[in-house]
């Protein structure tokens, strides 16, 4: 390709329209925000384990700090870590490569999307340091608390937080439109709907679910911003407004959002387990249909977050039924993933360990969700640490475990070098084992009646017992251990970027098109644009000398 002209650092890495550069920008921004979000978690976990003691690298945690810490930890981990890494980062990098074209259909729109996202990142970081401190009304931002500085005492933090989230939505709306249009129109010749890799399908379904669910919250955010800045009364019951309205608008988006990040994570797992077990994906179509079903049902479950919010008790029945029904397609998809392993030739390389760990850990999150979807048990468990433990057993596998599976799997493609396998495995076990010791104790604490977002339990005689306090200390220590092991990853990542073993085009002997491109792929991706002849998971086809059959090879 004739794009070898000299480009400055700025035009090549900062203002690039190349989907790979934009993907990496999202990825690195997401990883950086992951460090920020982890630091916030470290600070408030230390406060819970050792209440009132100064936290190293932070100092004494006041209630105002504590609320801002938990609020921004939640918002950052979902909107600035899970979303950019799983959807925007990997989606941008991989979609054009996996469907065999040279870029997104709207490269400049893509660049604009990242620039808006970058701006939102700056705003959320700035909001932590403004007078009054960062917003502390939880990532759900329920009014009237979030609507008025008179109640939340963060006159700058609250609107800035909301503006940052709104900008983030705009960035992902632009990105989502680009993804969906690209996959619909720019696929390589021969790539029919059933030849598209599952990961690409999942990003598309996730983008559509995001687009369809975020609109009402965008409207809701405009209304909340007006309440905050102009002093209108959309959510103020004293002037005829209704605080519950926000809860509906928020959760109409908030619950589908779980599936928006879950689906790409499942897509990553599908790609990795097929390659490392040399197996065709079990029941491709079923997996696809269960993903559609999940996406659709996810629009009808939102009020299970509001069972005790004062909604009509009869409505709760309806949402219990839909919520338990959504377990059916997800369970079936999990069965299909497990069945894929049957008859395989499983090699436990680092990406495979992460992918298998995803299934094992996500199962915990899945089954504990039933307790919360059932309206009667939710009365007790709502807003307790049981909920915290449950959704960390879903979000941690989604954002972190699947994220590491993807990073370790596609690293050779992205940077043309291998990561160190031994360090990779040390990092894997050093993350997975402490992870369970953080969140299993929280199930117990939640079942014992401990509520969320409380900066110290010293005032609660039933909760401030030595036994329960020991569990809090255990969770905090496990968190610190897990965070320390992340330095192993950072070291391995940075060292491998420059000194890792050189990787060839297709080191894992995989079928999908991205492995046809050079590692790392140049601008334009492919020397010659590929044509597709078969589905992405034709491994160990009987009668063939090789145990893989890339999509682009003619019959």
């Amino acid at each position: 390709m004739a794009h070898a002209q000299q480009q400055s650092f700025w035009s090549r890495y900062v203002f690039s329209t190349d989907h790979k550069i934009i993907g990496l920008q999202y990825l690195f921004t997401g990883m950086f925000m992951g460090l920020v979000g982890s630091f916030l978690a470290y600070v408030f976990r230390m406060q819970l384990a050792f209440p009132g003691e100064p936290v190293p690298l932070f100092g004494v945690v006041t209630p105002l700090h504590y609320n801002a810490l938990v609020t921004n930890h939640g918002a950052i981990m979902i909107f600035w870590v899970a979303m950019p890494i799983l959807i925007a980062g990997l989606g941008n990098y991989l979609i054009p490569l996996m469907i065999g074209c040279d870029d997104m259909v709207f490269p400049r729109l893509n660049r604009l999307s990242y620039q808006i996202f970058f701006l939102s990142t700056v705003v959320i970081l700035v909001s932590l340091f403004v007078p009054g401190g960062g917003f502390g009304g939880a990532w759900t931002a329920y009014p009237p608390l979030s609507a008025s500085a008179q109640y939340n005492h963060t006159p700058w933090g609250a609107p800035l937080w909301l503006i940052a989230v709104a900008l983030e939505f705009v960035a992902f709306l632009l990105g989502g439109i680009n993804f969906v249009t690209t996959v619909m129109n720019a696929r390589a010749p021969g790539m029919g709907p059933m030849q598209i890799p599952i990961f690409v399908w999942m990003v598309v379904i996730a983008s559509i679910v995001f687009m369809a669910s975020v609109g009402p919250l965008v409207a809701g955010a405009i209304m909340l911003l007006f309440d905050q800045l102009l002093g209108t009364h959309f959510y103020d019951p004293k002037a005829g407004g209704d605080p519950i309205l926000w809860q509906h608008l928020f959760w109409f988006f908030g619950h589908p959002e779980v599936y928006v990040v879950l689906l790409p994570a499942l897509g990553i797992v599908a790609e990795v387990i097929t390659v490392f077990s040399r197996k065709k994906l079990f029941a491709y179509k079923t997996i696809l249909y269960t993903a559609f079903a999940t996406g659709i049902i996810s629009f009808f479950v939102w009020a299970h977050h509001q069972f005790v919010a004062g909604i009509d008790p009869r409505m709760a029945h309806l949402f219990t039924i839909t919520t338990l029904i959504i377990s059916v397609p997800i369970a079936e998809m999990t069965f299909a993933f497990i069945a894929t392993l049957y008859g395989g030739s499983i090699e436990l390389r680092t990406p495979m360990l992460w992918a298998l760990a995803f299934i094992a850990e996500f199962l915990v999150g899945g089954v504990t969700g039933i307790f919360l979807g059932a309206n009667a048990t939710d009365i007790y468990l709502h807003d307790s640490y049981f909920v915290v433990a449950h959704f960390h057993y879903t979000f941690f596998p989604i954002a972190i475990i699947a994220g590491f599976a993807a990073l370790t799997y596609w690293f050779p493609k992205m940077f043309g070098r291998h990561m160190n396998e031994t360090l990779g495995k040390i990092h894997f076990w050093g993350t997975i084992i402490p992870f369970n010791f953080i969140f299993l104790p929280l199930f117990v604490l939640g079942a014992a009646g401990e509520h969320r977002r409380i900066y110290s339990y010293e005032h609660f005689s039933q909760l401030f017992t030595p036994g329960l306090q020991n569990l809090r200390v255990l969770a905090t220590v496990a968190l610190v251990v897990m965070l320390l092991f992340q330095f192993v990853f950072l070291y391995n990542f940075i060292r491998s970027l420059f000194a890792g073993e050189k990787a060839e085009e297709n080191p894992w002997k995989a079928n999908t098109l991205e492995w046809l491109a050079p590692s790392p792929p140049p601008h334009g991706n492919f020397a010659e644009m590929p044509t597709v002849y078969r589905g992405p998971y034709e491994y160990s086809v009987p009668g063939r000398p090789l145990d893989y059959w890339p999509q682009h090879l003619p019959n």
Partner: protein
Amino acid sequence: MLSWLVPQASTSARDIDWLFTLILVTVGFWFVVAQAALFTLIFRFRRRPDVAAAYISGERKEEKRWISRPHALVIVCDIVLIAGALLTWKAVKQDLPPADERVRIIAQQWAWVFVHPGPDGKLDTDDDVRTVNDLRVKIDTTYHFELTSRDVVHSFSVPAFRLKQDAVPGRIVTGWFRPTRLGTYDIQCAEICGIGHALMPARLTVETPAEQAAWYASRSAQGG
């Protein structure tokens, strides 16, 4: 099973704990089966030299059985759990048994105000007793509560009663409870409500009618 961790001090607590155990057994079964299948397959089909992987599309009917049968069983379990959840919810939340007494609960940043009916057992009479962060109720008495908030959303939570209800400004939510066990229990705010969210702990005392009468008497002797 929850009663190992937190006392079971109301009729609703009994019902909800039963449902909790039902769900735990059901999902526990699936959890064990799925993890056992996962780890067995990983071990059984680990890579060995000269053993090639099988080619199974999973699209043929006899192969699909491996996921469609568990799928059907999941649906059956879901129906059982939905039935259990709906019946329990109806009993503890939807149906309001007739009240013996009423209390009013008002949440604000950052305290709970309780209005007790006083010796005559009726609200909005001269002998009502207002307290802050101190709720006293009689054992084996069905209470209706009227819950509201003066400012932001709070949530009235008594873990020992398995009772939780958001206090929404501008609305009065009615609910009920029936204490079954004497003692003093924590009341927590379960919805973040600002800086003092952790600083609104209140106490709930379940006492005998005689103890309550004595407490009312001492209050009126003090206050006049």
